[in-house]
């Protein structure tokens, strides 16, 4: 804990130092712009170590502040080493008799010299081992999962210890849990079936919300703006929808009741496509919203350094501040929308039509 506080202090200190440096060094504007662009692009990607801050020291040597995370590769056998060996892609990591190098955010097997061959599309042709590394995003997910587990376990226990009344921070979360039950699950799924989806919906909502909020902290985390994360969440919604679907749901997809026979044939592929499109839209919506938020926010912060005059920088700061506040709202809103739509799709899956032919 003390370590983290120290690190944050260091971070803010270094931030101010780098801020003053930016003012003093007269770098060409074009260079700064591309640097900021590269920085934003880098920020949106997942990394192998938990990097808090990188800057170029006066001797031109790049300094990275953060902590290394374990790299786990399946390369004809399990290979585990610390990400500090990769040196942010600057050097080749030697593990046993194999060599690995980081190139454009991916780990490739190379020779001792670290040569990476590219094809005509500028894709690396080196062997990319199966990568199960505990990356920055995985690490953040684990931390969030632990936080959620202890938070809600604490809430559950506080009921037992306090006569069915929530205590402490649980008092804040209990109305949200009730809201998800009463305003999201029950109206969309129905009184009869909502219970079996509650665990998923609650976990989903808080997971996305917490990660969205964590993405707004200066730790530089972008988990929910990562396509693999949103894909896995949408994939789970897709699986749950289709595996818990009742007969009526499939009936409405393949043989729509109440329309002429020829229309039924035409509707079936459209409806089937809808089954895929629904979770796909979930995936893209969350990804795009969070990524866009991060890009806009970081661009505005970058503008402060590009303008370098009191008017433009102040304006950029004001805008960045306003967008930050909006992003806090978006963080909640996107978690809410993902949960509501998931609940809605579950509702379609278990919907029961009493008058089948009356449509």
């Amino acid at each position, binding site marked *: 804990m003390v370590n983290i506080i120290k690190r944050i202090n260091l971070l803010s200190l270094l931030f101010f130092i780098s801020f003053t440096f930016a003012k003093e060094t007269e770098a060409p504007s074009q260079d700064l712009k591309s640097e900021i662009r590269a920085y934003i692009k880098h920020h949106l990607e997942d990394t192998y170590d938990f990097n808090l801050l990188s800057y170029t020291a006066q001797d031109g040597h790049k300094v990275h502040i953060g902590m290394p995370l374990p790299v786990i590769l399946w390369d004809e056998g399990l290979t585990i080493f610390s990400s500090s060996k990769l040196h942010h892609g600057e050097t080749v990591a030697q593990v046993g008799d194999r060599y690995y190098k980081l190139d454009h955010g991916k780990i490739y097997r190379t020779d001792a010299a670290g040569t990476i061959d590219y094809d005509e599309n500028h894709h690396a042709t080196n062997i990319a081992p199966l990568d199960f590394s505990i990356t920055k995003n995985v690490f953040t997910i684990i931390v969030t999962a632990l936080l959620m587990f202890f938070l809600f376990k604490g809430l559950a226990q506080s009921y037992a210890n306090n006569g069915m009344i929530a205590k402490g921070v649980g008092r804040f979360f209990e109305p949200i849990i009730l809201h998800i039950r009463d305003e999201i699950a029950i109206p969309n799924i129905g009184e009869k079936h909502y219970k079996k989806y509650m665990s998923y919906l609650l*976990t989903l909502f808080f997971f996305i919300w917490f990660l969205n909020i964590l993405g707004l902290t200066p730790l530089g985390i972008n988990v929910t703006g990562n396509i693999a994360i949103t894909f896995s969440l949408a994939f789970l919604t897709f699986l749950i929808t289709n595996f818990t679907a009742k007969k009526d749901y499939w009936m409405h997809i393949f043989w729509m009741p109440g329309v002429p026979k020829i229309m039924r044939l035409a509707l079936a592929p459209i409806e089937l496509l809808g089954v895929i499109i629904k979770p796909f839209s979930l995936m893209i919506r969350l990804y795009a919203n969070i990524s866009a938020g991060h890009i806009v926010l970081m661009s505005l912060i970058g503008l402060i350094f590009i303008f370098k005059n009191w008017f433009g920088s102040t304006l950029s700061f004001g805008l960045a501040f306003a967008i930050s506040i909006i992003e806090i709202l978006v963080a909640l809103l996107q978690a809410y929308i993902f949960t509501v739509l998931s609940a809605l799709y579950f509702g379609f899956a278990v919907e029961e039509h009493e008058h089948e032919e009356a449509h």
Partner: protein
Amino acid sequence: MEKLISEFSFGLFFWQLFIFVGLVLLLKKYAWKPILDTVNERETSIKDALGAAADARKEMEALQEDNQRILKEARAEREALLKDARATGAQLVEQAKADAQKEADRILTQAQAALETEKAAAIEDLKRQVAGFSLEIAEKVLQSELEDHKKQTALVEKLLKDVNIK
């Protein structure tokens, strides 16, 4: 789209799926189920308590109504009793008065009768005495007539004058 696919990291997907599913299951067991159960239980108990309170209030109202009715009845009964008692009292007084009158009348009649008897007896007695006196007078007259006729006549007259019958 190509960018999205190139950005996709299978390792991250794997970990996310693994951790998230694990989290759902763990939270279900240790958090969501106890929380939702408790909340449900609490809601049921609140609903029950409210129902019980409403019932109690209804019962109370019924009881109050009952009380009011009983009170009203009691008041009416008291009224009736009082009225009855008053009537009875008046009747009693009336009766007593009548009785007293009757008694008084009877006593008066008795007294009058006694007086009559007394009077009759007195008259009888007087008559007897008068007869006695008459006899005495007649005796004395007869004796004096034998001595002096004149004197006898004067005596009789004098005697008769004395005997004054009222």
